């Protein structure tokens, strides 16, 4: 009998079927990779396993016992633990305190606690001082502490979700060694990663998800990387937008020195849409951040950009990755959100001219077909797709000539997604140069005149249409040696 069996798991979000009866089986003593493109359903499946989400259908069996679903505490009690890219550790507490967090006896001698922690860490072959505050450790050591914490809580299933995204090569190696050790202790290990080289190095079997369905579960031993990529991507329809050609006018010259990124020089013609592909932490976000004056340094046509304010004045605007925490002031009305970047131009002596502000909001509501058609509603009241359109409206109201977009359709339903693509193509026709940074390579294939693939802070490949999708994805996930 398998250690973990997830049977016929299904989950809907509104109109979207995120999981359609997925089976997932993990044996004791194996590292089981879970792969799939963004939106394939990996994280939904794992959220159900961890109890963070309740499924609409299906059951989960652990060691022959059926689990009660939808409770994080229950899942943890049964021995299911998660190691995320962002760790759930208290940075101000010591390693030892973190290891036994929530399970302190009422009176405990700190030396006793340290000794116990020391024993646990040594048992795992880790050299981490138990008295050090977790926040002072390197990212890699923190990840190891998180694993040790899970083990101290008698975890039997450990899920690593993009656990190496923030780690250096050396730290990654350390984590790999620990994972191999855990395998020999008969734990069930689930490895989620966009980096296929990790999957091939570490995992015994792989389950591929695509569009909320399980496509295959295979041993990795004799699997060719190209086959795996094809399983992930599927046979795609070549449904590229008809993009207008970029204008023949003088190009924008961009010089970028981002954080964790090799210096980069780009030229971009008006009306050109440039795609930046890569996994999280590959350096593509650093390009966008530098160009908007957030982190790093950038020159646009030789002029420095040191702050968002300066970027906006020079006709650069960013549509950030997270509309709720970065894009919108949720309590403010849709109108006030749209006008925020250009508010000063709608004032006379500092006083807002209501008629102009309302007209601006109305204009963009119509142009982008934002629903419900009431700009006075707070931004919080709109659906995901319409909130994203609000952020786009904000961006367009500044009349940018260089638009930066991070994950422009994340969490947006299919219909709104198509609308957004069509809009981006429209602005390209108007001569707005665009840089789209996205983890969804498929959308870049659809949308861009040119795609740069980033890995570990460098551009490793450049593609021009007609694209061969598998080839681009293979470069993104590292199934091809760059």
């Amino acid at each position, binding site marked *: 009998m398998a250690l973990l069996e997830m049977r016929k798991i299904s989950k809907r979000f509104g109109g979207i079927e995120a999981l359609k009866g997925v089976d997932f089986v993990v044996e004791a003593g194996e590292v089981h990779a879970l792969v799939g493109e963004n939106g394939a359903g990996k994280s939904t499946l794992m959220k159900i396993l961890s109890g963070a989400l309740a499924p609409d259908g299906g059951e989960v069996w652990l060691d022959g016992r059926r689990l009660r679903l939808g409770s994080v505490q229950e899942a943890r009690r049964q021995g299911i633990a998660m190691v995320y890219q962002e760790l759930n550790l208290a940075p101000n507490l010591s390693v030892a305190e973190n290891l036994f967090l929530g399970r302190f006896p009422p009176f405990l001698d700190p030396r006793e606690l340290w000794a116990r922690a020391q024993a646990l860490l040594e048992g795992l072959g880790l050299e981490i001082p138990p008295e050090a505050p977790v926040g002072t450790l390197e990212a890699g050591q923190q990840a190891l502490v998180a694993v040790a914490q899970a083990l101290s809580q008698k975890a039997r299933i450990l899920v690593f979700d993009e656990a190496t995204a923030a780690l250096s090569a050396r730290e990654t190696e350390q984590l790999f060694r620990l994972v191999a050790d855990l395998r020999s202790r008969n734990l069930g290990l689930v490895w989620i990663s966009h980096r296929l080289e990790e999957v091939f190095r570490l995992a015994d079997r792989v389950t591929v998800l695509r569009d909320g369905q399980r496509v295959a579960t295979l041993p990795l031993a004799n699997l060719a990387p190209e086959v795996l990529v094809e399983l992930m991507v599927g046979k795609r329809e070549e449904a590229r937008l008809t993009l207008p050609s970029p204008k023949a006018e003088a190009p924008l010259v961009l010089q970028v020195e981002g954080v964790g990124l090799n210096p980069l020089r780009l030229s971009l013609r008006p009306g050109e849409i440039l795609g930046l592909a890569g996994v999280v932490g590959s350096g593509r976000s650093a390009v966008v951040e530098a160009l908007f004056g957030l982190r790093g340094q950038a020159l646009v046509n030789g002029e420095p950009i040191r702050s*968002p304010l300066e970027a*906006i004045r020079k006709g650069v605007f*960013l549509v950030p990755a997270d509309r709720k925490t970065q894009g919108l002031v949720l309590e403010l009305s849709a109108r006030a959100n749209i006008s925020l970047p250009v508010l000063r131009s709608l004032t006379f002596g500092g006083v807002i001219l209501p008629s102009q502000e309302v007209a601006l909001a109305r204009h963009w509501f119509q142009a982008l077909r934002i629903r419900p058609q009431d700009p006075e509603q707070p931004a919080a009241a709109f659906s995901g797709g319409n909130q994203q359109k609000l952020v786009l409206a904000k961006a367009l109201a500044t009349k940018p000539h260089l638009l930066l977009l991070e994950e422009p359709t994340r969490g947006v339903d299919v219909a709104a997604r198509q609308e957004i693509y069509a809009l981006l193509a429209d602005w390209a026709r108007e001569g707005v140069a665009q840089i789209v940074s996205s983890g969804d390579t498929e959308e870049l294939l659809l949308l861009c005149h040119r795609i740069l693939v980033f890995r570990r802070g460098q551009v490793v490949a450049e593609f021009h249409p007609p694209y061969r999708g598998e080839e681009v994805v293979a470069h993104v996930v590292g199934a091809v040696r760059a």
Partner: protein
Amino acid sequence: MLWARFGPSLLSRYGLLWALGFLILALSLLSPYFLSTANLLNVLRQVSINAILALGMTVVILKGGIDLSVGSLLALAGALAAGFALSGFPPPLAMGLGVGIAVALGTLQGLLVAYAGLPPFIVTLAGLTAFRGLTLVYTDGRPITGLPDPFLFLGNGTLLGIPVPVMVMLSFLLLTHLLLQNTALGRYLYAIGGNEEAARLSGVPVARIKVFAYAYSGLAAGLAALVLTGRLNSAQPTAGTGFELDAIAAAVVGGTSLAGGRGTAWGTFLGALIIGVLNNGMNLLNVSSFYQLIAKGAVIVLALLVDRLVRRR
């Protein structure tokens, strides 16, 4: 259906007015004197200082900060204005200087918050202590008395039958309301308090707006200082002790969110009125001032609970 659509917004929008109305009704039944013009004007006069401070406080809280220094700043501004007047400055100039120094010290605190990145609570707590100290040094711990007439007029005079402090309060209410609802500056305050990151990414000059908020609170402290000095006919070195808490209470009862981004000038004004009416009513009913404190605490918690309930749905 209709209730589901409009009920909550009616409650949250006019809930404060209803609460005030209920309070007034109850008090007028309990005490025949309560509804007299003289008493109502008296309530307004008593409320004026707290309302002015609370309006300044609202501007700071809206952007996601807090200003604990206003009580001490009030004492300092009052002492300076009084001192300048007695040392020969023309009274209007002396008053202007007092208010100006309050604005300058507010600005200083704003600079520490916005550019040095210090927590507002700590910066203004330091202000609370230091400004009180400055006041005690300047006054040598003794009241400044014998002020010229313009001070008395500000504190006790009337214009068109309305007490001057009430006039000052209403003007400041109007000014704050216009600032928050009609100017880009006001909108930026809401944006920063609601989501500072989104505001920054929209090109809002976040640091400068923050400095402005503390300067405005300083202005409120300066104005309140003139009114209080006039009413007491002297500048007291211990004036304004604890006033910052009353101002925060008025803002919070008036629907201002301590997390920032939510609140209005009118709400805060009503909050100050509710607290003021309650105090006045209890005085009329001879409730001991000890119990009054308990009642005030209860009202603050109650207001927040009701607000939370209305918003949850």
